[in-house]
């Protein structure tokens, strides 16, 4: 009796927790509302199955608990029932898989008008690179990384000269413009993760990975590393700000290009630093 009751309580408690608790995903700030919707579909289907199975179990425990003189049924199998259950399960699985695969095909198809933004992970900070005026990122190689060239940009590649380099500072993105995030790492695995954008992808040294999204809400969002990358993993944070077009241009104008960063230091520049 108590066992059946507690099984019912588990179901009721789980549902109430789901509805009443304040813990839910943060408001979305990208175009991936479809992902949230697929997740909601999955919640409905799985929630129904969980409740049905556990409540059925609770009923059985209550109704068929041991009583003197009662013998259990002898029933080795029931082909028809099993076939039905298999078919219903298959339908449920398909109902989750179909929208999932549809959204995935969108997720991996980058629109042609997406601008490229490179994120470069490093223990334990975030660097970024924007393609500059020519709209193309220059070649890069981890073997070229030096103190002056922290992202390993190829100095011989003309496309790289006007690339905007942002070292350990905030990234700004213009609102409503699709961006293709090119992900690179100069040391170990990292993962560029902004909870509000929903999308994420590992960064693997030696290759360039990517994902795309369109920011849909201005604001300041935290970047976290989502792939264990060593002792400082939990403290590898950054900021992405989604700006209006004007704010974005204003910010962009204040950034330094690779050419300027790697130019030999001039005496005048040194003077400016000194008091």
């Amino acid at each position, binding site marked *: 009796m108590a066992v059946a009751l507690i099984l019912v309580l588990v179901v009721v408690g789980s549902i109430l927790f789901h509805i009443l608790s304040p813990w839910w995903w943060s408001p979305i700030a990208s175009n991936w509302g479809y992902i949230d919707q697929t997740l909601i579909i999955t919640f409905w289907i799985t929630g129904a199955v969980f409740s049905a199975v556990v409540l059925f179990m609770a009923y059985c425990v209550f109704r068929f608990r041991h009583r003197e003189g009662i013998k259990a049924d*002898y029933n080795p199998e029931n082909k028809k029932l099993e076939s039905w259950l298999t078919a219903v399960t298959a339908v449920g699985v398909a109902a989750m898989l179909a929208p*999932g*695969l549809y959204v995935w095909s969108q997720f991996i198809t980058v629109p042609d008008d997406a601008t490229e933004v490179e994120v470069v992970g490093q223990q334990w900070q975030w660097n970024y690179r924007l393609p500059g005026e020519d709209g193309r990122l220059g070649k890069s190689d981890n073997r070229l990384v030096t103190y002056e060239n922290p992202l390993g940009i190829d100095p011989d590649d003309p496309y790289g000269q006007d690339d905007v380099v942002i070292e350990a500072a905030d990234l700004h993105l213009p609102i409503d413009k699709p961006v293709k995030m090119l992900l690179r790492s100069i*040391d170990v695995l990292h993962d560029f993760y902004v909870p509000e954008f929903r999308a994420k992808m590992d960064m*693997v040294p*030696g290759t360039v990975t990517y994902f795309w999204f369109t920011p849909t809400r201005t604001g300041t969002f*935290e970047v976290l590393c989502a792939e264990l990358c060593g002792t400082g993993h939990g403290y590898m944070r950054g900021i992405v700000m989604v700006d209006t077009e004007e704010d974005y241009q204003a910010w962009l104008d204040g950034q330094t290009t690779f050419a300027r960063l790697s130019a030999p230091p001039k005496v005048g520049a040194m003077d400016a630093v000194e008091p």
Partner: protein
Amino acid sequence: MVDATPHAEQGIPPAETPELELYHPRGWWTTYVFSQDAKVIAIQYSGTALAIGLVALVLSWLMRLQLGFPGTFDFITPEAYYQFMTMHGMIMVIYLLTALFLGGFGNYLIPLMVGARDMVFPYVNMLSYWIYLLAVLVLVASFFAPGGPTGAGWTLYPPQVILSGTPGGQGAGIVLMLVSLILFIIGFTMGGLNYVVTVIQGRTRGMTLMRMPLTVWGIFTATVMALLAFPALFVACVMMLFDRLLGTSFFMPALVEMGELMSYGGGSPILFQHLFWFFGHPEVYIVALPAFGIVSDLISTHARKNIFGYRMMVWAIVIIGALSFVVWAHHMYVSGMHPWFGFFFATTTLIIAIPTAIKVYNWVLTLWRGDIHLTLPMLFALAFIVTFVNGGLTGLFLGNVVVDVPLSDTMFVVAHFHMVMGVAPVLVVFGAIYHWYPKITGRMLNEAMGQFHFWVTFVGAYAIFFPMHYVGLVGVPRRYPELGDVAFATDSVHSLNAFITIAALTVGFAQMVFLFNLVWSLRNGREAGGNPWRATSLEWQTPTTPPPHGNWGAERPVVYRWAYDYSVPGAPEDFIAQNDPGSRHRGAV
């Protein structure tokens, strides 16, 4: 319908396989320490696994203390946190669950359940345990190595795993871990060959495959899978060891660590991930299938009803075993592998849900119109179904590639796999121990302590891991020693974390009651007799309890029926033992 008649019995052919020539121990050492008796080896395996599992349990408390009350415990530095986390994961998955289900339950139950006197190769079986013990000792040694054990996470992803930014990466920690895993695999292969060949070759007369209890089916299939999957981990470990010690670049790309260009170049971290998960995903089922098998037998015995859809259950085990080799990359949806793989692996992953669901339906349908005795094993079996269904269903979130994208590497994943391959199989382990302890020791475990243990463990574990899903849904990443103040998570998330920690400590301490019960009942438990649960399968029909070396006395049993003749209509009792030749009188089925 063919009933055994005396006439038919005369037709029994002589034993096709010659009786095993048993090794006869002469002294105390060869009886209890260097024993070749599968039952002693089983207890050695279980004892060692539980001991090292206890270490992993304590490590989980330390992690929970840090997560629930960040900044309170100075000695839990980020380095220490990652070391605790790595060792907790590796111990629980490999050195506790795999060793306990296959080395422990496999050794004890397979020979008894198929009517064999022992494993087919007792000497190799003994070696298997001692190599396992050596692997555990090497693992423990890494705690005392300079720099401490590795803190790379149980997935041991390169390149960080052997670099100085990861605890133990440049010290002996990672080397000892890899050596220990290699030893474990060698030891396991020795044991695994035994379990498989004993099922194929050691069965007694009348014990066809389709008469075997599902426990044996589960362990058998899991062992076959483990034999084929562990080589992937072996290859990954050996290649990693080469990268670490000999400077090869199998997995190591060109990289700059802490401003210094390393001598590696060109390697592929993704290659390691493929190898690791090619082992890692079957590993989930290597733990789950024995649990599936055992829980089927617990439910059937304690509901006094045959397992519903036995054939379907067997086929489902075999199909799940085969399918689990083509789903591995669902752990790598956001690893940067080719995105087209997502379509394939999401589909295979969700397909595997169908045979798994069939198993769940058949468990609950076995309860329907049963005669349910709410004994401790039954309670644990019911709790297993609740947690397994819960954890299995959240697997549908993570297996569906695009839904996995926001959830991967968050606490949702942690909650999911703890529910499905932590709590659920461990509940089966407990249920199985309450069920078979009387056979192993001749005494029952104490009921009151058992009830306390059950309720705290079940309700507590659910209270730990159910809310944890929502911590992940909020967006909290896994493997963070502290979250700090972030905009996307409110303060209430921290209170929830503190609640989870308190629940975890409570559940942890309840396990001490269980361990005490194991020891206390050895002397003080109620005398059990040979077959306290009135069960049908062979292990309960041994002439003496606990069964001696050789199990069966002068004659091995002959099997006349399947393992699930409970509540047969017209039979005088509500069970008919597998070796009972008596004809049964029942109507057309």
